[in-house]
């Protein structure tokens, strides 16, 4: 679905990626994690055709994104971190924007908007940033495009809205779709993504399915100091330690994305070896 081969990209003289290769398949929700400025947004913008690679290639649904052909654009939707919506009522927005997307479903849009508790007759410009973002997310999901790119989708959403977002996205998942969500607010993606890709300094630091992660790693709380010492990553709390360790009993537990991210950033080599073995 998305194939990135030997991608090099730079902003003038500031290199972002150098020889990055990555594949994204349909039927998955990818969590693209990383610190600010590590290239998450640049990668999404390269996939969307808003930025062009300096070297290497990207193919999305068989298209070259840099050509921005209509066949490519009608099957890819990006929810950027900073976005613009026109100063028109929601029904007008739907009437003029949705016909560009052949699989747009108005009923679906209505359901999402209702779930987000947004009045359908509102004018976009009178809405708060969070409300506008919810309209854009609802629109994006209702387009039913095969590639959905979301850059920090939960930024600007309040706690209730973040819950609504997770619920709506979980309902909207489709086997034909590939959803890539870039964020540094990793907690917001828990229970949503099925593959974790961590980018650091323009390189892929870690790229594994949630299934593999929970099979090989254990995220738990321990009072045992030896346990904490043996762990790949440990964080002290009031009573004991929260650790990331090898999953020795093989039982799949719950993933803690924040802990995983910290473990990869601090002890990436050790964890990578676990997945290579």
């Amino acid at each position: 679905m998305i194939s990135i081969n030997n991608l090099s990209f730079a902003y003038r003289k500031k290199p972002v990626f150098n020889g990055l290769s990555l594949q994204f398949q349909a039927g998955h929700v990818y969590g693209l994690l990383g610190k600010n400025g590590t290239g998450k947004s640049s990668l999404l913008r390269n996939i969307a055709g808003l930025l062009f690679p300096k070297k290497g290639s990207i193919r999305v649904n068989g298209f070259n994104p840099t050509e921005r052909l209509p066949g490519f654009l009608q099957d890819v939707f990006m929810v950027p971190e900073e976005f613009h919506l026109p100063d028109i009522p929601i029904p007008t927005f739907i009437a003029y924007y949705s016909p560009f997307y052949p699989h747009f479903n108005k009923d679906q849009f209505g359901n999402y908007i209702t779930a987000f508790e947004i009045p359908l007759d509102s004018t976009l410009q009178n809405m708060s940033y969070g409300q506008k973002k919810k309209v854009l997310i609802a629109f994006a999901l209702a387009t039913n495009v095969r590639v959905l790119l979301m850059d920090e989708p939960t930024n600007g959403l309040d706690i209730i809205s973040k819950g609504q977002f997770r619920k709506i996205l979980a309902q909207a998942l489709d086997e034909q779709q590939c959803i890539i969500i870039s964020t540094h607010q990793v907690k917001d993606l828990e229970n949503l993504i099925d593959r974790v890709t961590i980018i650091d300094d323009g390189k892929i630091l870690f790229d594994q399915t949630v299934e593999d992660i929970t099979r090989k790693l254990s995220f738990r709380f321990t009072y045992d100091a030896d346990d904490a010492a043996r762990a790949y990553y440990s964080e002290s709390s009031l009573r004991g330690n929260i650790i990331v360790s090898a999953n020795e009993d093989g039982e799949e537990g719950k993933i803690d994305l924040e802990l995983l991210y910290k473990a990869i950033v601090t002890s990436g080599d050790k964890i990578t070896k676990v997945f290579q073995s």
Partner: protein
Amino acid sequence: MNQFFSFDRFSLLVSKHWADNKKRYLLSVLAFAGLLITWFAFTLIIDDDADRMSLDVQLSTYFFSLFIAGTLYASQYYSELASKPKGSNFLLVPASTFEKFLCSLLYTVILFFLVLTAVFYIINFSMVTITNSIYANDATFKKAPVANIFDVTFFEFDNNYALNFLLFFFAIQSIFLLGSVYFRKYSYIKTIISGVVAWFVIAGLTFFIYKELYPKSKFGDDEPAFPSWLTMLISISLMYVVAPLFWTFTYFRLKAKQL
């Protein structure tokens, strides 16, 4: 699916542009009409009796409006590309670059010209009628005719006057349309500066090359007089070459735009 041009997609794009901008466009038309009325009323006060709503006043008002408003509109058409959120919204709309470019020509060249000319004629005709009726009994007042904007020539290289001024206007406007894609900020001012610099460079080069190529004896004492074929060539270029050339540059610049 035709990836280069589809009439359905183009129609959707034209409708979408109208939906996004209709409030701004309608207000601009009202503001233009108001300015015209104010200006004509002002000329009635300051002009001598015989010059009230004269052809000169009408024509200079029309062409001044056409060139200023036309270049201003063209120079801001792609202004959304200066902002990442607005520009992303524009570039990611599922239509081809050619359709987006053609939409810009439809609005900035055809519809702008038609709307401006229609509004001008409505106001101008009304003002001429009102002036003629108010001053009908004034002995020194000559009845003002309604100007024909198509009966004007800028370049006398053929007799097609109606097309002459339009083609010249499109040539100038096309430069500003390119400027709106090219410059992120202050595109109007930067386009004027670039245009003036380019004009002096081209004119200077033409002058010196011609002066070097041909013996001085053929010209006047101080400076060479350009022969008719060269002035004809410059005129034809301004009429028929500049606009298509700059539109082509605009299309390719739009195609290569990154945000």
